[in-house]
Structure formats: C-alpha cells, structure tokens
C-alpha cells in the first residue's frame, strides 16, 4: 500500500510537468490543426538554454523560467514565420513532415552547440526530498509541479479572460468566422504557436533541472506528449491535463508493477489504442476526417 501510494505520488508529480509541456502542443493543434512533431525538440532546446544560463552565470533553473519563456516565445515566432506558416493549407500530413524536419534541424543544431553528450543541472534542491510520513516528495518535482500549475492557470486565464484568448478560440472554432469579426487568423496562428512554445519553454527549463538532457531524447518526449494529447483529446486543454496525469501515473505503475521496460511502450500503446477505439480522446470533439464514414 505504501509502495502503491508512493508510486501514485511520483506519477502525479511527473504528470504536472507533462501537462505543462503538452499544453502548448494541444493549443497549437487546436488553433491551426498542426501536429507539432518538433515539440519534444523545443523542450530539449529550452532545457539546454537553461543549462547554459546555469553553468555560465549560475542562474537557478527555476528563476530562469521567465527568461527562457521569453526566448522560446521568440524562437517559436521565428520558426512559425520561417517554416510552419508555409505548410498551412496543404494536406495535414505535410505539416507533420515540416515539423518533423524542424525537429531534426533542432536536434542537429543542439548537437553542434552543446555537443551530443548529456548535460545535467545540479542545485542544492535537485537531489533533496520532502518526507511526509513514509512517503517522499522530491523537492525539485514539487517545485516544478507547483510552477506548472501556476503557468497552466495563467494560460487558462489568458485563453478565457482576455481578448487575445477569445481571438485564439474563435480562430480555432471557425477560421472564416474569425476573419469576419476582424481577427487576423495569420497573426493569431503565429501568436498561438509562439505561446505554445513559450509554455513548453517553462516545462523544458524544469526538465533540465529534473534530469540530464541529450539532444537525441526528443523522440521520447514527442511520443509522450503526443500520447497525452491524443488521450486527452486533440485540441483540448483540460484534456491534456487529464491525459498527462494518466500517462504520468501509468508510466510509474508500469515501472513498479509490470517491468521497467514498459513505460517506453506506454505512450505508443495509448496512442494506438485511443486512435483506433476512440479517436476523439477523452475530452476532444471528433475531427472532420474521423467523422466521415
């Protein structure tokens, strides 16, 4: 029972960071129907930036978050304008290829800048825990989960309480309708992409604090993040949060009770099963292409 509870604690803590990282992916898909395969690579990039700030200036990774978010926002904007924008309107699988290409380019760039060795950030709280009775809560994960919740709430507020948020949601529901009421869909798409990458930046910064980073690990991240948003329902923010919790807990349970090889397969199995059995996921509406037939 203690082992089970401990596993659940770890799963939920991991899930919070996953949720933050997946929120950008689901947001980008919701607005522009682009599956951003480069999302994992952007996360690793943010982690490396955090690492550089920490190793060069001793800047604490969690304090670096606002800065990283701003930088990632800019990178997201540039990448959108330079590449993703041009694939809009073509077949959806073409956008997948474009973002896949971006992922490969990012991996190469990171390899050139930071080398293909792993880099890890160590602060005084990265290896410490808070102990409550028989359970332990890793400090860095507690902090990361707390920040994730804060950023997610901020994102929720942005989407639901501001004009920009309404414009984003309008563009995601009905593109021509949004145009009609004076929302520039092109500008909103670019902003959404940048915002999605910025929130991911916060997640990436924490990722750097939690575990060592290597450029080539982005495949794993994109698999996990895709599984989360597929499970939660493509385009749904609450769905992404729920999906992230489920994946986080399932991975931990699989490690403890099935075998430590299984967490790798969890995202892929979930993608496979969900897309076959219930393509709309938990919270998502059905897509047009799923609906016909």
């Amino acid at each position, binding site marked *: 029972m203690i082992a089970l509870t401990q596993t659940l604690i770890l799963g939920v803590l991991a899930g919070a960071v996953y949720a933050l990282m997946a929120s950008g992916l689901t947001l980008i898909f919701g607005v522009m129907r682009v599956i951003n395969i480069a999302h994992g690579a952007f996360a690793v990039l943010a982690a490396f930036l955090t690492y550089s700030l920490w190793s060069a200036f001793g800047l604490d990774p969690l304090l670096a978050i606002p800065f990283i978010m701003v930088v990632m926002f800019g990178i997201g904007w540039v990448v959108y304008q330079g590449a993703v924008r041009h*694939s809009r309107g073509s077949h959806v699988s073409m956008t997948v290829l474009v973002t896949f290409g971006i992922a490969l380019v990012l991996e190469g*760039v990171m390899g050139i800048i930071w080398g293909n060795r792993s880099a890890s950030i160590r602060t005084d709280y990265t290896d410490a825990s808070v102990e409550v009775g028989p359970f332990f809560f890793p400090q860095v994960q507690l902090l990361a989960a707390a920040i994730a919740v804060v950023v997610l709430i901020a994102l929720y507020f942005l989407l639901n309480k501001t004009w920009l948020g309404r414009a984003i949601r309008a563009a995601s529901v009905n593109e021509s309708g949004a145009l009609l009421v004076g929302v520039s869909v092109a500008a909103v798409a670019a902003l959404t992409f940048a915002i999605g990458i910025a929130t991911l930046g916060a997640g990436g910064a924490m990722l750097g604090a939690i575990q060592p980073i290597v450029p080539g690990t982005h495949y794993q991240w994109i698999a996990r993040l895709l599984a989360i948003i597929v499970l939660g329902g493509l385009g749904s923010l609450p769905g992404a949060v729920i999906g992230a919790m489920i994946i986080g807990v399932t991975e931990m349970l699989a490690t403890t009770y099935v075998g430590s090889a299984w967490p790798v397969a969890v995202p892929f199995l979930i993608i496979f099963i969900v897309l076959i059995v219930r393509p709309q996921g938990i919270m998502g509406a059905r897509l047009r292409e799923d609906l016909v037939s």
Partner: protein
Amino acid sequence: MSDAAAKSVQDERRSRLIRNGVLAVLALIVVLFPLIGDASMENTMILALIFAIGASGLNIITGYTGYLSLSQGAFLGIGAYVAAILGRSMPDISPFVWMPVAGLTAALLAMLLGLVTYRSRGASFVIITIAFLFLVQFVATQWVPVTNGTAGITFPLPTWSNAVWGNWPFHLVLVGLLALSILVSWWVRRTKFGTGLIAIREDEGKAGSVGINAPIYKLLAFGLSALFVGMAGTVYGYYLSFVDPIGMFSILNSVVIVLAIILGGRGTLLGPVLGAFILVPVDAFANNYLGGGNIRLLVFGGLLVLLVVLLPKGIIPTVQLLLEKRRTKGTVGLTGSITALADRPLPPPREKLAPVGDTMLLQVTGLEKSFGALKAVDGCTFGVPEGSITALIGPNGSGKTTVFNLISGLMTPDAGEIVLDGERIEGLAPWGRAHRGIGRTFQMTRLFREMTVLENVVAPLRDFQFRQLGLGAVSGSEAEKAEEFLEFVGMQAYRDARAGSLSYGQQKLVELAQILVLDPKLIMLDEPAGGINPTLIERMGGLIRELNDQGKTFLLVEHNMPFVLGLCNPVRVLARGQVIAEGSPAEIQKDPLVLDAYLGDDYMLENRSGDGAAAKGEGR
C-alpha cells in the same frame, strides 16, 4: 488529321523514344554498377537500391492512396529480422532463401496495421504509423527468446568469395527486387485497383459512395507496399550481417523513404526511385565530407522543410508540368462544348406529374443524428415511391443534407431504419449501399479532380470482386458504356479533360454520368439545379425526366422551387430534422405548416451555421 496534329503526334513519339532510351541506359548503368564503382560506391548503390525498393513500395500507399506512413522502415526491419530468426535455427541455408517468407510476413503485418487503422486519416494516421514503428521496435527489444533482445542477431558471412564475386549477389538480387517492385507499381496504376486507390486519395467519402470498398483496397495496398521492402530487408540484414532493434527500426530510415517519395514525386512510377537515388548519395556525402551526424540531421531536416514548402509536388511532376507548358504553348486549350447537349431533343414537359405509386422503393423511419448538442435529424420518417421523382425540401438547417448522408452511408444514424427495396441498409457501408442500387451526387460536386472525366466515369463499381481489381482501368465494354453516359449528359467532348478543370455546371453533369454507371435503382441528387445557369437547369430537368421515363426513381434535395414544383411529385418537407408535411406540389404549397417553417424567423438565424456545418460533417 491536320498538319499540326500530325506534327504533335510525331513530336510525342520522338520524345517518348528519347525518354525510353535514357531510361534504358540508366537501367543498364544500375544493373552493371559494380563494374564501374569501387567498394564504397557499390555500398552506396546497395543502400540506394534498398531505399528505392522501400520508396517504390511506399508509393502505393502514400502516393496512390494518399496515406502518409512513417512505418515503412519497420517493414524493412521486419524483413531483416524474419531472415535473421529463421537463419539462426537453420544456419546452413542461405539467407536469400528466406526472402519470400520475409516479404510475406512484412505484407501480412502491414495488412494488420491497415486493418486496425482503417478508420484513421490524416494526422491521426501518421501518428499511428510512428507509434507502430516504435511498438515493433519494442517487441524486437522485449521478445528476447526469439529476437535475442538488444544484443541482436548476427548473420553468417556470405559464403561466396569476396575476391571473386564481391557484392554482385547482393546487388543483383536488389536490382531484381527493384525491377519487380516497379513492375507491380506500374501494373497497379493501370488497373481498376489502382484507379480505386487514387479515387480514395482524392476523396475517400466519395469513393465509398460510388461503390469502392475502401477498406479492402487499402488493406491490399498496405500489403503490396510492404511486400518488396520486406524482401529487401532480408538482403539489408544479410549485407549488414547484423540486426538489432535500434539500428533496424531507426525512424531515420522511414524518414529517408518518405523524403525520397516527396522529392521524386508522389504517385509517379519512377519518382520515388529517383528520390532514393538522389538522397542516399547525398547522405553519404554529408556524412563523409560535411562533418557527419549533426550535419546529416541538418541536411535531412532542412530538406524536409524545404521540399514541402518549395517543391511539394516533387521533381518528376514539376518537370512534367514544365515540359507540358512548353509543348502546349501557343496551341489552343480544351476544345469542345456542351452544344451537343442542346441539339439533342428532350422529352417535353409533362402536362400532369406522374401519379404516386404505392410501393415504396426507399422507406426511412425514425432517423436520428446529433452533432454534439445539435440535433440535426430528429425522428425523420418518409418514403420514396418506386418510379417517382420525390423532392425533399426545407429551409436551411433543416437537415436535408444530413438525411442524404445518412441514406447514402456517409454518416451512421444514431437511431432509425432505412429500408431500400425491402432490405435494411442502415448498417451497411457506403459502397455496400452503392452496390445495392443507391447513387448520389453532392451539393458541392465531388469529382476526383486529378483524374480525367472518363476515368471519373469508369471509377464507380457496381459490386466488389477480387478478380475485377486486376482489370484494366479504362477498357472494354465498361469504357463504351461510360462514353454512352457521357454522351447522354452531353459531356463526351471533355472525356480526356482533367475533372478539376471543368466548370461547376459541367462537373454536375459528369457527376450524374458517374453515378449512372452504377445503374442505380434510386438516384439521389443534392441540389442538381444549384449554382448553375438557367439553360443548364432546364437541361438538367430534362435529363432527370428522361431517366425517370426509363424507370429510375429519384430523390432530390433542391432549393429552386419552380424547378421542384415543375418536376417532382410527391414532395416531402423537412424542418428541424423532421418531416412536417408530405404530398403533391399543389398540396404542399397550401400547407400553413410549410409556410410557417419557411417564414419562421427562428430559421433565419440558423441559416449561417446549421446546415452548412452539418453538410460538411463538421461536428465542432
């Protein structure tokens, strides 16, 4: 034949000769390559051949059928693993012997993937294929008793003398496989099967409604696409002398194959092969002279982005387009018109509309369909009498198109019964309904835009048989029949034009000819008179009447009231997803409920969103 025409035929013959000559020389160079190249060039050639076979196969599912798959590399690995596993238990047999087994295993697994993903499209499908690749890798890692886990399996070294034979056996086997693969691809493109695949790529929903059994087609396409790459996998593993989960199921292999298709030209016969023969040497070059791994990632990643953005069609189609432009420069474009249509006498308008019979060809009972909170069809009940021209009218947003989609099988009803000629059909797939005698057109025409008019008209299938898949796409009695129907609608002059280049009205006529090939009992037309000029409207009415005289039953959705009232009897009025009035045109015109439905202001508000969204099938 005019001089110009003769000259153009001559030109064409000459350019074909040149093209075939160039291809023959290239093929010879490829076959005899080990004589020319050193070991390193040979090695690059072998890898290029392997990826060319992979790309040529993937072209069937991605190029012809339109399903982008990132799992092609998995089938390469599966082929290698099959040979490695079998070779481990029988080490004295040459690994080449296992090629057919490897190919069939890969094909079967590909069909299994096709089976479980038959409902997925677009992005979902791409994601599933990525997941499949990683799951296969997971199985290869975990199924230790069979696959030896991460340690992998080694092949024996080739038994032939390296000094004498070098890589010739590898090379020749791969050349043979590539030739076979291209041959099959060429054959597929010429058959009904190939036309069906392209119809699926162009418009899968429409393909179903003209009787094409998409799941079976896709399943076969999946199998074929993996067959040769599975066999090539055996050679690949034997050549590398080692299989293991990380190397064999690297996603970069799949990326290179997909890139090859896009670079060379999706859906073209030789484009994918060309793509592979460009990419593999580029890869080798990047690795040897530009600094290796990270640069390769930049090259491949950058190529992916640039290709999709700048050259989405690929090399071969782009070159073809340029050549075409140069050749047709100065000559007149499409000739022919629908004047023929106007010349043909049509039956005169009837004095009295035919009386309504008692037998119902189609009976719909209690049909329901919701999109989220919106109840588009709510207990809809009506019948279409045999031999009648029945109209289904109603204000925008009343659910007419949704009812059409439910009857033709494009959507599944939440509840209710649909009976055609005494048989329940609501559980059948669209093609099943097409085979049983329902033919429909679409409000916005949905022809297969990249096909010619004639190809469009021969595409529909009245039933499904495996042997029919291998028949030539445009040939024999079917083609004759198709031409007859084209003549009937007055479009025979356009038989070789690309469907997408026709005007909207012309497309409507072709779509009508297209469904006539199905020899349907019930013809369902969604706004046949919408958006076309008055002369054409009149013609359309005439055609409908003539077909009706020949015994066809019609169900029409139409907004043009004079057209409806002059043509149809009986009329069913739909509002809020229910039939609120039925009867002859005269009765309907007097019905206060109908007036209310059309004039009630609550419908005005829904005009913009309701019917439009339902028609497109958007649930969000």
